[in-house]
Every structure is written in structure tokens, then in C-alpha cells.
């Protein structure tokens, strides 16, 4: 029998299904207010930035304050296009999953800026260790869409030979590490990679992303200990999209007011940024990359955002959060905000936006048609069955050779 009062503290969100969405409790620092220190600043001097919120785009969609990266309109339009393509791709793939074309899918709706702006601020040679919700990086780095789809439907052209769940991409050519399904494991790996970059004496850095829920994992702690101890040239991104499947952020944050603040405990430069603000994500990533490249060590960046859709195709958020919560998120939608900023600059308009949306939708539809010519999960062709025994080791030993024979391939 349930007790009226819990006997110990279990945090809970203040609204649940049936309630009216409400974010009035959030005390968000206005865009333009946060000061931008020199990237060489002592990590402990970033306390205000870890507790505050770095934003560039204000309510009027104007770029304001120290952190304004002052990007050329062409760069802004490029960013807008990558984010819109990410969304068009996600929307299409969800529909295809619902039609039974793939086993599983994960959208990044509402979080496109977190991936796209960061990827554009990094050098293409920088190694990224993403989680499963940063597909925007692939678009920003120019990966072939057909290749991405071939992976998701595990067909004969899947560059991972059908071994990974959809969206668990790998793209070495684009310096995109293999995505794990086990949470936070990539965080300390990225630090090791960054240390090796320094060892090799080049200018390359590493960046990684995990969700706020995964900061509870030991590997989050391990990554920060390593990064701080060895002053590794790494960017450690915590994407706080408020929800870890059905579990609200408070189950991971505990009494800590922000996730960025956790970085301060390790003496690392730590920033909390508006993750739905393309310019803020870009500027913060540039700052952290410069800090890393100049030998001042790692930065923890909490991107404050909202997972506007379900965790995955196996999840239904109506069971744990109010309907329409995404529409009331006080930091808006990253695509709409950058679009309005560009319109305000006189560098974009509704007609062009609608035309681009149409163009990208058509691109995605045509790409999928092409992807299917290389096979589908259900009807094949897939990678050859004997490929399941490949790449376990560089060479197959007697065990794998015999088992392959046992399977008759």
C-alpha cells in the first residue's frame, strides 16, 4: 500500500499528464546578459556562467551581447538549412519507421541547434563522440543522406553491415566516432582521444555529448576527472533536454541547480547555454574550442533545451508529461528562432523558407527512394550473412571459422 507521504525524498516534476504545461519556475538569464571572459580564464572563474544562461538571440530575435559570434548571413543560412534538413529527415524517418521500414528510430526535434551549431563551430578535423541524438552533426559535416538511410534500414549499403540499431551511426571519414547504446561511455573515451591529439602534437580536439540523465553515470565523473587532471583539449557537452525517457531531469541533478555547475567541482570551465539558440551554441563551442586548442583545458557545456518529441519510437511521452509542453518551452524552437533572426536581418523571408522546406522534403523523399534500391531490412539485400563473423578480430580464429561453417555460410 502506498503511503500518503514518502518516507524519503523522491523528486518529481511539478506537472504531469492532465496538468497545464508550466515553466514559470524557470529563472532564465536574459540573452545578452552573460559576460564573455577570455577563453584562457581560470575554470573557477566561470561560476556565474555555469549558474546563468548564455544566450545571444533575444525575444525580438536580435543578436545581442558579448557572446554574439557575428556570423555572416551565408553562415546563418547554412546553419538554418542543416537544422531544417535534420528535422525533415527525422520527420520522414519517423513516418517510415511507423510504416515498418525500420526497427527503431530516434528524432532530435527541438535539439537541432545543439548538434548543428556545435559541428559548424568545430573544425571538420575535430573528432566527435556523440550520443544518439546528434544526427545534426552529420548533416553539418556533409554526410551523404542516402548513406545515412542505408544504415538506418540496415541494407546492403549500410556502412556498419547491419550490426547497429538505426541512428547509431559511425563515419570515420567525417571524424564521427562509433555511437554506443550504453550511456556516457563515450565521454571518457573522448578525453582519452583528446589526450592522444596532444600527444601527437597536432591541433585536433575532441568533443562529446551526453544527456543530462547520463550525468548520473560513473563515466561522466570519470571523464571530468580525466579532463581536469590532464587538462585535455576536449569539449564535454551535457544536453539537458529535461527528459531521460520518462524520467525528469531532477532525478539526475538532485539538489544541484544546474548540470554545468557539476563541472566546477572539477575546476573545469563550465557554461550553461541556451541550447535552442543557434548563435549561443556556436559561440560557446568556438570559445571552448579556442580554450582547448590553446592548452587551457576542457570545457563542460550544458545545453539547456527541450526534447520536443518522444525519446524514441518505443516511447510515448503522453504517459508522463503534459501534452503540449514542447510548445510552451520558454526558449522556443531553434529553427524558428534562427529563421526569424535572419528575416529580421533582411536576409531571409517566408517564401524562401517555405521553398527550402519543400526542397528538403523532396530531397529526403528522393534519398529514401534511392536508399531502398540498395535493399531494406525486411526484403533485403542485406550485408552477406557471413559478415556477422567479420571484424570481431582483425583475423578470424578457428572458433569463428568453425562457427561460420556451422551456420553454413
Amino acid at each position, binding site marked *: 500500500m502506498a503511503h500518503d507521504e514518502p518516507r524519503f525524498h523522491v523528486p518529481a516534476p511539478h506537472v504531469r499528464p492532465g496538468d497545464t504545461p508550466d515553466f514559470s519556475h524557470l529563472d532564465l538569464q536574459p540573452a545578452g546578459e552573460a559576460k564573455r571572459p577570455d577563453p584562457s580564464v581560470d575554470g573557477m572563474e566561470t561560476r556565474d556562467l555555469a549558474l546563468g544562461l548564455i544566450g545571444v538571440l533575444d525575444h525580438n530575435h536580435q543578436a545581442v551581447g558579448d557572446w554574439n559570434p557575428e556570423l555572416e548571413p551565408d553562415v546563418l543560412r547554412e546553419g538554418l538549412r542543416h537544422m531544417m534538413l535534420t528535422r525533415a529527415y527525422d520527420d520522414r524517418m519517423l513516418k517510415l519507421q511507423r510504416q515498418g521500414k525500420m526497427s527503431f528510430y530516434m528524432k532530435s526535434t527541438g535539439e537541432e541547434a545543439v548538434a548543428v551549431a556545435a559541428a559548424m563551430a568545430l573544425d571538420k578535423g575535430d573528432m566527435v563522440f556523440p550520443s544518439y541524438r546528434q544526427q545534426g552533426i552529420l548533416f553539418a559535416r556533409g554526410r551523404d543522406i542516402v548513406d545515412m538511410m542505408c544504415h538506418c534500414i540496415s541494407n546492403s549499403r549500410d556502412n556498419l553491415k547491419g550490426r547497429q540499431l538505426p541512428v547509431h551511426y559511425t563515419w*570515420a571519414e567525417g571524424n564521427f566516432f562509433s555511437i554506443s547504446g550504453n550511456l556516457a561511455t563515450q565521454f571518457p*573515451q573522448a578525453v582519452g582521444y583528446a589526450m592522444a591529439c596532444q600527444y601527437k602534437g597536432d591541433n585536433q580536439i575532441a568533443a562529446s555529448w551526453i544527456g543530462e540523465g547520463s550525468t548520473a553515470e*560513473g*563515466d561522466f565523473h*570519470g571523464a571530468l*576527472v580525466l579532463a581536469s587532471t590532464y587538462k585535455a583539449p576536449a569539449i564535454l557537452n551535457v544536453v539537458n533536454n529535461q527528459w531521460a525517457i520518462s524520467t525528469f531531469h531532477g532525478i539526475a541533478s538532485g539538489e544541484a541547480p544546474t548540470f554545468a555547475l557539476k563541472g566546477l567541482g572539477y575546476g573545469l570551465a563550465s557554461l550553461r547555454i541556451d541550447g535552442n539558440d543557434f548563435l549561443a551554441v556556436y559561440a560557446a563551442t568556438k570559445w571552448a574550442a579556442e580554450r582547448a586548442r590553446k592548452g587551457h583545458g576542457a570545457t563542460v557545456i550544458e545545453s539547456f533545451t527541450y526534447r520536443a518529441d518522444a525519446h524514441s519510437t518505443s516511447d510515448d511521452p503522453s504517459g508522463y508529461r503534459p501534452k503540449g509542453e514542447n510548445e510552451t518551452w520558454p526558449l522556443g524552437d531553434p529553427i524558428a528562432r534562427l529563421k526569424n533572426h535572419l528575416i529580421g536581418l533582411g536576409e531571409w523571408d517566408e517564401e524562401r523558407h517555405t521553398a527550402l522546406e519543400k526542397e528538403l522534403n523532396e530531397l529526403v523523399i528522393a534519398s529514401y527512394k534511392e536508399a531502398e534500391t540498395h535493399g531494406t531490412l525486411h526484403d533485403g539485400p542485406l550485408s552477406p550473412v557471413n559478415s556477422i563473423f567479420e571484424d570481431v578480430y582483425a583475423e578470424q580464429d578457428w572458433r569463428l571459422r568453425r562457427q561460420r561453417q556451422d551456420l553454413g555460410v
Partner: protein
Amino acid sequence: MNMIQALNSAMDVTMDRDPDVVAFGEDSGYFGGVFRVTANLQKKYGLDRCFDTPINEAAIVAMAIGMAARGLKPVAEIQFADYIFPGLDQIVSELSRIRYRSAGQFTVPVTIRTPCGGGIRGGQTHSMSPEAFFTHIPGVQVVMPSNPYDAKGLLISAIESPDPVIFFEPKRLYNGPFEGHSGGALSSWGKHPKGEVPEEHYTVPLGKAEVVREGHDVTILAYGTLVLVAQAAAEKAGVDAEVIDLKTLAPYDIETIARSVNKTGRCIVSQEAPRTSGFAAELAAQVQEECFYALEAPIQRVTGWDTPYPHAHEWSYFPGPERFIHAMNAVLEA
């Protein structure tokens, strides 16, 4: 050389030949490791080639993975095999699968060295032989040497291997050979033929076992400390036993094993670890698959007990010569 010096020499020659080889672990840097296996390497090669790490085995393994993905050849030390479990997720879900899940786009040739086994009054947290867990992970190789010569040659092979290796070092053998008698003076590797270790680079191949005692009546499969114990037991019992040192457990050398058992018709499998679901069980299963019609008696197992490794009663736990003799009698009487 003793086994510590041989392992140190393996790291020294590989670090000298290849600037991508780096070594690290808890107390591994300045101090050279609690067992001194990395002694003097920091002094000789610099702070960034042999360094101390925070006490976080998951982070140590993950750091090695990241470094290997960038082209280094990391040799990570886990201070005791009993401490490896916080790093298990990084080994099971990451290290072992990066080549596979990236379809060869990324590879992580990491060597994880870790001292294992009992016989040094280590109690339950410094005596484990957890090798069986690791033989159950596709994508890693598992090695355990039984003497200084092999230790050096196998460690060099491990470091130079394109795939990850979990390298178990039986710490009871670090300072001298051990035949399973707890009392008496400690013998020295200096007087043992396998203690003659060349200074220079050489390799002992992974995946190859060695017949270390030829015989006709029974085959004893052993690795690590029990190789010497099995040989001593055969001498003491006057049994014409063939003893095979497996050296590599994953992948183990089925050819050498099957050739011997088909010749002797009898087999004892052994391990220091607890009995149930140990690596010896895998050996027994495979031997009966390969050699069933040659077998004249049920396969016997010599193992530790299904208990944690006790402190005070260490020698009642350790599978010493008497347990081997008992098994030899059983398998020969059958």
C-alpha cells in the same frame, strides 16, 4: 629475470621501438607500479609515456580506448584483477566491440595488464582469477603466462596485436616459480630455464599452447600458476602426464590440445578460479567434442572452490599438487 623484470623489459623494448606505446595506471608512473612492473619507464621515456591515473578503472579503460582510436598503443595497468570490474562495461560494451560495431572504421589495440591469482595472502580482494569472464567476450584476446620468458614474449605480442588483449599476470609467479607448496623457501627464477630472458625484442605468439611436459597417460591442461603445480604433481606422483601450458585462453589452441588428448585418451582441466562456469568447463566441453572417441575416462576438473578466496585458509582453497594427484588417480583408475 624474474617475471616482473621480464614484463618491464617487454614494455621497455616496445616503448623504445614505437613512440605510440604509452603506459599508465594507478601508481604506474613515478613509483612504477605496486609490483614495480612499470619501474623506471617514466624516468626513461617521460611523463607523458608512463603516467599515474586517477583511481577509476572505467576511466582508465575508456582513456585507453580513446587513445587507441587516435593511433596510440596504450598499455593500461589495472592494479589487481579484482579491481577490474568497475571497468567491465568499457571492456564488454566498448573495447571489445569498436572494430565490430564500426565495421572496421575504428580499431582499439589496447593491452590491459592486470595481476591475478592467489598465493600471496591477498584475501578475497587481491587473489581473484577472473579470466573466464573475459573469455566470454567476443573481440578480446585473453592471455596468461606461466614464466618470465613467455611473459615478455607474450606481452610484446599483445602490445603489437591489432586487437585488444586482457593480459593476466599470475602474481604468485612474479618473483619465483611456485610448485604449490605453501611452506619452504621461495625459489628463484634465476635458476629456472624459463627465467633466462633475452634483453632484446622477441615474441611468443598469441593463440599457441606449448607441451611443457611430454607424457602418454594423461593430458593436463593448465595456465598461469597451475602449469608449474601440475608439472610438480606429475613428478611427485610418478605419472606419465603430458602437461600443456595454454598461454592464450582466447583464442585457445585447440589443435595442440586435441593432438595430446587423442594420444593420451585422458584429460584433466584445471584453473585456480572457482569451479562453476570456469574456463576449465569450456575446455572440458571442447575436449569432449573433439576427442570423445579417444577418451577412456571422464574428464576431471581441478579448480578452486565455489567460494570467495579466503585469507586464513588460502592453502585450503588453492588447487595444489594433492588435488592434481587425486585427479590423476581418478582419471587413470577409471
